[in-house]
């Protein structure tokens, strides 16, 4: 579904590489987690997929079409995008926010309305109750639910997520994680999610790519990463969730 071929990105004409010679393939319906510390190149990699950043060299294919050959605005309208800042339009109602992409795609008013109701239902904020509200009247968790609804409104096959749950409190975060995972599975969405939270990646992703200094160190399923880390860095970052899980298990056994 998404293919990165020898992609490089440099912001200083090649002196340093934000993303170095990266190749990745993401299958249709797959959930890929991109993980690493701040500045490791994971967000840049994500943004190159919908051309918010342009690669310095290499190719990116979405649905077998090179993204460079597509109008960037058209491309983005067909790819859902959710990020930590949420960025709901404060001058529009909640329903108008959800309707943003279908409106850009010039759907009919009836179709837009029906799809808004559907998407808001899906994220648990019914249209009749929340549609006319202003985003500022929603809690942080509700705002990100609307962010997700907006990203899904135009029925994209691909959704890009940049630390979407990072700013939420832990309880709201895990609620939203679980709900989003089930939506993703029901709709067979292809998702690339950037995160620095290894637990989140392990729980949600089908496969995880670990990045450091612009290089993908290892790609694999959560199980492979936990059991066969190919690199000290990977071992280190899976160690914490592993220790926590063991500790929780002990606690439960002792009861």
């Amino acid at each position: 579904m998404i293919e990165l071929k020898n992609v490089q990105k440099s912001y200083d004409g090649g002196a340093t590489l934000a993303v170095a010679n990266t190749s990745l393939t993401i299958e249709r319906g797959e959930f890929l987690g991109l993980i690493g510390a701040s500045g490791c190149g994971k967000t840049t990699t994500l943004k190159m997929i919908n051309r918010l950043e342009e690669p310095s060299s290499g190719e990116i294919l979405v649905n077998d079409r090179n993204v460079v050959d597509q109008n960037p605005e058209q491309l983005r309208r067909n790819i859902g995008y959710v990020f930590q800042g949420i960025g709901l339009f404060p001058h529009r109602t909640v329903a108008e926010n959800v309707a943003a992409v279908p409106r850009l795609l010039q759907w009919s008013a009836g179709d837009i309305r029906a799809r808004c109701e559907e998407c808001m239902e899906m994220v648990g904020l019914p249209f009749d109750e929340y549609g006319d509200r202003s985003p500022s009247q929603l809690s942080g968790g509700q705002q990100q639910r609307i962010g997700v609804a907006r990203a899904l409104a135009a029925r994209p096959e691909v959704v890009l997520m940049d630390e979407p749950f990072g700013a939420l409190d832990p309880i709201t975060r895990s609620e939203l994680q679980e709900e989003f995972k089930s939506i993703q599975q029901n709709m067979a969405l292809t998702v690339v999610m950037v995160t620095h939270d290894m637990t989140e990646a392990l729980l949600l992703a089908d496969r995880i790519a670990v990045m450091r200094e612009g290089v993908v160190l290892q790609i694999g399923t959560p199980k492979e990463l936990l059991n066969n880390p190919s690199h000290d860095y990977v071992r280190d970052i899976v160690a914490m969730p592993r220790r926590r899980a063991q500790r929780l298990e002990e606690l439960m056994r002792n009861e």
Partner: protein
Amino acid sequence: MSDNLREQLLLLPAYFQGHLLLTLAAISMGVLISVPLGVWAEQSARVKRPLLAVVSIIQTFPSLAILALVVALLGGRIGFLPAFIALTLYSMLPIVRNTVTGLESVSASVIDAAKGIGMSPNQILREVKLPLAMPVIVAGIRTAMVWTVGLATLSTLVGATSFGNYIFTGLQTRNLVAVMVGSLASASLAVGLDGLVASMQWLLEKRSEAADSARLKRIRLSVYGITVIIVSLALYGLIPKPRADFVVAGKPFTEQYIMAGLLAQELEEAGFSVEQRLGMGTAVVYEAIRNGTVDVYVEYTGTVWANFMSRESNPGREGIRSGVVEFLEEQNVTTVGFTGFQNRYALAMRRDRALELGVTSIEDLIPIAAELSAGSDLEFFGRTEWFRLRDLYNMDFADKLTFDVSLMYTAVAERQVDVISAYTTDGRVAAYDLLLLDDPRNALLAYDAMILASGNAAAQPEFMQVLDTLVDSIPDEAMRQANRLVDVDGESITVALEYLRGEMAKN
């Protein structure tokens, strides 16, 4: 008093209309230019700094200077156009600055989201940034509007009609009722327009509310109604009125208001229609008569000699007269004739103070000048006449203060200064019992009042016939008394004009 008020209120519709048209036209043009400039500046750092610097510099220019500069740049054109351009320039800073600030303050995450969902740069600007910046932009427009309404009063000085007509005429003829009416009218217009824009903005924000309450509908209807009325009132001024046969002009002091009234009455009685442009600055009215926007006004030989011919010598009264007439001829301005009175500068002291110091002429001041303080109008100490006086008598005063004319007379009357640069036909000279000092060394120029006509008007024999009756018809004393009626006794220009015509009929 109530007669005076009624007289002033009769002028209100015309002044209101002029002021409104000027303000709305300038603000609309200001918005049309400044908002796009602000958008451009926000997108390009290279544009932003120089643009903000330029509009800020415009703002630091004194508003009068901007008006005068625009008149000069338009080749001496007066009236609506220069005032409109100057006010437009003045309205730009708050609008440009608030547009830039408003756009810059739109949260980055909202813009990221707009980009991320596939809005084009144009859509982001139109649908996200501008709507979110709108409250800040409107605040800038409101600031500009209040400034513009206030500044529009100054446009009277370049011959555009506004509430400034009340204020300048009132200040110069000591008619406080006129000043009050003008100031209150201007202030009310500022408050009213500001409120109107505020309520439009409020309605715009309420637009998205699903159900229109009956109250909201009523408010919306009345705001739209008022807007339509105001705009049509302003536009009404654009309907060309039948052009008057002649335009009579005058400068902003009592004698000039009386003389302009006299010229207008004489022409009207001969059957011509006349438009009056009063309270104009000297340089402005002179340019206007050269290019024919003004047909007739009263000027003084010394002013032409020193200001427009830039002469520093003093060839005496006759020498100046002939030099000036010849010069004006070259400028395509016809000298119809001299009115008979002279309004010169003269150094003047309180009679008791002069007696006490034993002074009757400027020569007597030489040994004591260094201990005296002197007051002048806004110009005198900057004129070549003063420099010549200083050199010819080889003296200077300890203090030199400049005043508004009426305050200058008050200052000498109340002994705050010893000597002032009085006007010889000013009624206050007699009222305050001032002694005009002789000038044996001929430092000060002659200022014969003369009627000037544009080349176009002078070509019409009927026009010249009417004005010929005014030549040599007003002695110094008659003019002084007419001025005194206004400046000292608080009578209206109309009363002074009647008196003057009565005196003229006696001869």
